[in-house]
């Protein structure tokens, strides 16, 4: 639990990165949300054995992190945190799909391994893009942008509350779990029975806490709408940002660049 607690607290720092003052931070959130969506759709829409064509897409996270001054090591750490989940999804592919697709000398690589690697690379790319989006825009900004792009306000507010609730839940959970560990000497007290009671208490406690937070929000004039600092305009810079990146993603999606370079090099050598 201490591990999760620390990880979540660390995750909160992501919102702090969004207070940066680079040109990318200053862009209207809608532009960044649209580009991220186009990026994710491009990456996800490849067929399941595609691997090489995915690599050029790393240019987007690399450029955005550099322009937005995001710490690469920290961002990589956040992505690694999600990787086990991707692996859990893909780990059975090599078992089910054993047909050899690539012959590297004496080694045959089965389709299962390729699709497994493809799932992992795709999750690194998509999760990375999402985390970079939060780091450059902040979660409230993203919710606001989604609302401006036509998502019903109720959903946008729900999303924002869900995000806040994660932190409330883990904070309370961390405290409850610490109290239990300190009073359970050795194995006793760590039984399933005490665990179920802990979980149910956790639900009620976070509920009460969430209610108090909501109360504090209402007391400060919250009416279901949220506002984010300076209202930004979707202007020429935003349009340029969206068009350039979308064009790059679509080109990369339609044309396998590594393969193309390979063919050109081979042709020059022959």
């Amino acid at each position: 639990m201490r591990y999760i607690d620390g990880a979540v607290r660390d995750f909160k720092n992501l919102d702090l990165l969004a207070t940066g003052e680079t040109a990318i931070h200053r862009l209207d959130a809608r532009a960044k949300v649209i580009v991220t969506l186009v990026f994710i759709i491009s990456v996800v829409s490849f067929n399941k054995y595609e691997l090489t064509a995915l690599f050029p897409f790393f240019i987007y996270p690399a450029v955005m992190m550099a322009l937005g001054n995001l710490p690469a090591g920290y961002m990589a750490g956040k992505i690694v945190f999600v990787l086990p989940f991707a692996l859990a999804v893909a780990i059975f592919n090599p078992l089910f799909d054993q047909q050899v697709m690539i012959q590297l000398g004496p080694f045959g690589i089965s389709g299962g391994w390729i699709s497994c690697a493809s799932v992992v690379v795709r999750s690194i790319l998509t999760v990375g893009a999402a985390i970079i989006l939060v780091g450059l825009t902040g979660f409230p900004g993203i919710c606001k942008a989604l609302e401006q792009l036509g998502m019903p306000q109720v959903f946008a507010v729900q999303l924002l509350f869900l995000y806040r609730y994660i932190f409330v839940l883990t904070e309370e959970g961390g405290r409850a779990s610490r109290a239990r560990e300190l009073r359970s000497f050795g194995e006793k007290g760590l039984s399933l029975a005490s665990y179920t009671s802990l979980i149910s208490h956790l639900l009620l406690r976070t509920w009460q806490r969430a209610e108090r937070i909501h109360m504090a929000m209402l007391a400060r004039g919250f009416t279901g709408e949220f506002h984010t600092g300076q209202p930004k305009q979707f202007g020429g810079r935003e349009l340029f940002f969206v068009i350039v990146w979308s064009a790059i993603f679509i080109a990369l999606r339609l044309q396998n660049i590594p393969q193309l370079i390979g063919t050109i090099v081979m042709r020059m050598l022959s």
Partner: protein
Amino acid sequence: MSHHIVDIVDLCHTYSDGTEALRGVSVRITHGESVAIIGANGTGKSTLLLHLNGYLTATSGTIRIGDFPLTKGTLPEIRRTVGMVFQDPDDQLFMPTVYDDVAFGPLNLGLVGTDVDQRVGDALERVGAAHLRTKPPYRLSGGEKKRVAIATVLAMSPDILVMDEPTSGLDPYGRRQLMQLLKEFHHTKIFTSHDLDMVLELCPRTIILHRGMIAADGPTEEIFLNTALLEECHLEQPLSMQGCPICNRNILLSCQLK
């Protein structure tokens, strides 16, 4: 200036589980007054406070804040007028940075751009927390959190400041600083507290709640001299009014007797 008046008439509140938290409370607090609401645990202090900005709805009775009766239609105006600082600052600070948190109220009031900056700057300056503006709230000490929580409310320019247990959880120095800060505010102030020494120093008027009803309402010093009443309401005199633990001489009382 009638808009700073709090007028509560025969307020009753029964929770959904049947607990009668308030049983006919009537209070009138006028402009610029500093009033303490004290009482043992579970006597309805917090319930009463939560009525003041319309979070709880009265089972019966009426509340008027200034010119407005508290109804659903007047809620936004009343929530701007009544600034409420909650007991646990962690509940009040929920945005990524101190700046965002203090700006939350003004943004909800419809302010934009430099106006928001101005409000946030002023509010943080007033509580002596201007240097904390870029920090995330969870990295602050207890005293700093309390100051920022007060700033979040001041940024909305309330006319009436309501605080639940302002000094709880603060170290002696932090408590002293906060009291100094509160002394400088010329708002109508309503506190609940178990810190009776603070009450003695900051609030000329005290209301004792006992079992959901008002047991006493009057000048603070008078109430704290009535030991029988205090005992009946599960309270005791502030430490500064009790005898010295070594010689048992009561400095404050001897002053008053002269």
